[in-house]
């Protein structure tokens, strides 16, 4: 069959000694700086597995391709690099999809490599054939079939460039098996040979709109920065702090913006949104200038958009033009990389006096909201184990320096609220897609990517049971992930919604699970159980001593809810503050 010419592929001028497509793939990965890949073999990718030993690539054999995709995602988020996952055609490739969509929603760079049936069989319903590119299109930044061995080096280089440039995202490359088996003499391209006409490259350098923003800041009395994931993607947390200090503006953060500013910094306002801190949400509603930097103003932050930040001029800085004006009315939209904008702003801003009145107001609100929703608020029952206490103790024990990967549900909100983050790239969570089962495999990737840090997964008993097959991977490769299961024997967040919104009509919220300590025994993983507050510190200390993976099964009060809570369809001024209400 005729090979499709890659439209932007340069005409091969230089030549190298011929090698098969599979070797060209591995060579390109090495050239891209990849050291670790997460994969699962199958017929169509066996040509890659056949040559893998020849390259300095550590292959982690996951137990399910979804785990591989999340692990690659966790690797990327913890390191700021590009994680790689490999799967075979058909079921293997499809198992990646949840992981791709998770990465897409959170703008995580990642490259997925799939095999497919040989070119001559494509489209003929051959054994284990799936149109994975067709399936992956809406959940990837880019996906394509590589139809010619000569295109392999270029395609891989292009995939990495697309994945990490501009607004990052996952890229899927599908290789028909015979493309991996045939030879090519085309070299790996030099950077100048890459021509990607469709890449939106934000222009680096000054951002003239910063003039206008600086004026708005000068005119504001109660300004607030709402910082999102984009600040970390741009590696601009230092600049953010400097801008905050220069202009004396408090900084709130979104879920994925955790770590943008040290939570103990005097200008850190805290976590905003649906289960964010009341004082932060009050600030959003009361501020006269809201500066969103690298956030999406998504519904988990804004609630009802018509009542969001009613007193504020809203500024939105995003690298992706299509985000601006998508969700909220915007008085000033600036398309720029967060780092470029912050640097431009810093050059323009004079040192501001402390905004005493505004900060005093924040302090007063904070005192009330912390007293209400910290443990002791009545949201849990006497003598039972409360989740916020457990998370707080993990934070304390690790000096708030661990990589913490949360799952989805109540555990995710407790982790976000009570760990006490200090640094960027230390909090990983599936924010946009809300993928249960994310945490354990993503923690696996994070632990391998950033081995110098302790890695904890915080997960509900529901999410844990979705991807717990990766326990075997943790053991086989002795990956030191500490797993804290916040076990309420419930799909906790479902139970909470049914209690508050569905008149306590509990259905399918009660969850039978295995005895986790004995389960871990079967895997050879040291495990502990804690049911009382006075046991918590001890088991955490024990788990931290384990050389490999470890697990703690925290038996919580099954009726504990996460407060405050913004009900569906409601706004930030209209939150349920606690159980007593």
């Amino acid at each position, binding site marked *: 069959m005729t090979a*499709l010419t890659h439209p932007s592929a340069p005409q091969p001028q230089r030549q190298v000694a011929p090698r098969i497509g599979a070797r060209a793939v591995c060579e390109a990965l090495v050239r891209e700086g990849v050291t670790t890949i997460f994969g699962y073999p199958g017929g169509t990718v066996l040509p890659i597995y056949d040559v893998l030993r020849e390259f300095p690539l550590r292959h982690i054999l996951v137990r399910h391709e979804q785990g591989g995709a999340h692990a690659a995602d966790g690797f990327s988020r913890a390191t700021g690099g590009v994680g790689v996952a490999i799967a075979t055609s058909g079921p293997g490739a499809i198992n990646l999809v949840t992981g791709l969509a998770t990465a897409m929603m959170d703008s995580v760079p990642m490259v997925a490599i799939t095999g497919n049936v040989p070119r001559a069989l494509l489209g003929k319903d051959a054994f284990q054939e799936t149109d994975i590119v067709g399936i992956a299109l809406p959940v990837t930044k880019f996906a394509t079939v590589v139809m010619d061995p000569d295109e392999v080096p270029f395609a891989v280089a292009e995939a990495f460039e697309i994945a990490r440039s501009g607004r990052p995202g996952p890229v899927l490359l599908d290789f028909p098996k015979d493309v991996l088996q045939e030879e090519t003499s085309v070299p790996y391209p030099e950077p100048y040979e890459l021509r990607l006409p469709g890449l939106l490259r934000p222009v680096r350098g000054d951002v003239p709109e910063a003039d206008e923003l600086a004026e708005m800041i000068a005119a504001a009395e109660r300004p607030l920065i709402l910082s999102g994931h984009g600040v970390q993607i741009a590696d601009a947390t230092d600049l953010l702090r400097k801008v905050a200090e220069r202009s004396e503006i408090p900084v709130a953060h979104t879920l994925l913006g955790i770590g943008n500013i040290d939570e103990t910094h005097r200008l850190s306002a805290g976590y905003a949104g649906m289960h964010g801190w009341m004082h932060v949400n009050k600030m959003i509603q009361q501020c006269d200038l809201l500066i969103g930097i690298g956030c999406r103003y998504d519904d988990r932050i804004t609630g009802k958009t018509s009542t969001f930040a009613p007193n504020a001029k809203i500024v939105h800085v995003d690298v992706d033009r*299509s985000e*601006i004006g998508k969700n909220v009315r915007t008085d000033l939209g600036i398309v720029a990389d967060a780092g470029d904008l912050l640097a431009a702003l810093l050059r323009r801003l004079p040192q501001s006096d402390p905004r005493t009145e505004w900060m005093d107001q924040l302090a007063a609100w904070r005192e009330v909201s912390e007293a209400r929703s910290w443990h002791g608020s009545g949201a849990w029952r006497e003598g039972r184990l409360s989740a916020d206490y457990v998370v707080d103790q993990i934070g304390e024990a690790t000096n708030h320096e661990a990589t913490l990967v949360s799952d989805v549900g109540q555990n995710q909100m407790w982790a976000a609220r009570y760990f006490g983050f200090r640094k960027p790239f230390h909090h990983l969570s599936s924010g946009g897609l809300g993928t249960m089962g994310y945490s354990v495999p993503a923690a696996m990737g994070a632990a391998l990517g950033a081995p110098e840090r302790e890695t904890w997964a915080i997960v509900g008993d529901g999410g844990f049971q979705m991807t717990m097959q990766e326990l075997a991977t943790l053991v086989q490769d002795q990956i030191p992930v500490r797993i804290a299961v916040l076990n309420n024997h419930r799909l906790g967040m479902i139970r909470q919604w049914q209690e508050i919104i569905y008149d306590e009509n509990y259905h399918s919220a009660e969850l039978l699970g295995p005895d986790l300590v004995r389960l871990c025994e079967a895997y050879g993983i040291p495990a502990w159980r804690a049911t009382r507050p006075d046991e918590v510190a001890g088991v955490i200390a024990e788990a931290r001593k384990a050389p490999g993976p470890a697990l703690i099964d925290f038996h919580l009060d099954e009726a504990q809810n996460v407060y405050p809570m913004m009900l569906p369809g409601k706004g930030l001024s209209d939150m349920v503050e606690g159980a007593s209400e």
Partner: protein
Amino acid sequence: MAAARRTIPAGDPDAEHRRHVVSALVVDRPGTLNRVSGLLRARSFNIESLTVGTTHEPGRSRMTIAVRGDDGHLRQVLAQLERLIEVLDVTDLTSAPHLELELVLVELAVPASADEEQAVLDLLASAGGETVERDADVWRARLTASPEVIDRALDALRGHGLRSLVRAGAVAMAAHPHHDTTTNENGAPGA
């Protein structure tokens, strides 16, 4: 310096839906059409027509997409389209002078009288058309005009033995600002 305030409203789903003609320059590779149409579908836009063809540049195709939607919503979707790797440029031609034409093939009953024949030929001519084949039992004709003119001609042809039709969908191109949008010889108004 008094800064100009640009208020960008969030898309209002209740705003009046009007027809937009969008021109997109895209990379000619498998999957591009899928991506573009998929994005419009995901945002619940009903595509009235979508045409694709090669351009003077190798490896580049031009899409003309006619959709209905409110302006703010569409503007945002176009920005989403623009960020696709396969999409190089997106322009909403709706409010600027532009040429817009559509090709239609029709099958007509053979006119029963000379008067009828003249009426059919006049209608075809009003939409830049002419007969292509005149068989004993059927006529085939083509029309080339703006979609509105085509619509009017087709409505009228229904009373003159219209049997079936194939519409190619609109193709559009930005026009010179002084382009007279009302008296184009093919009756192709610009807006």
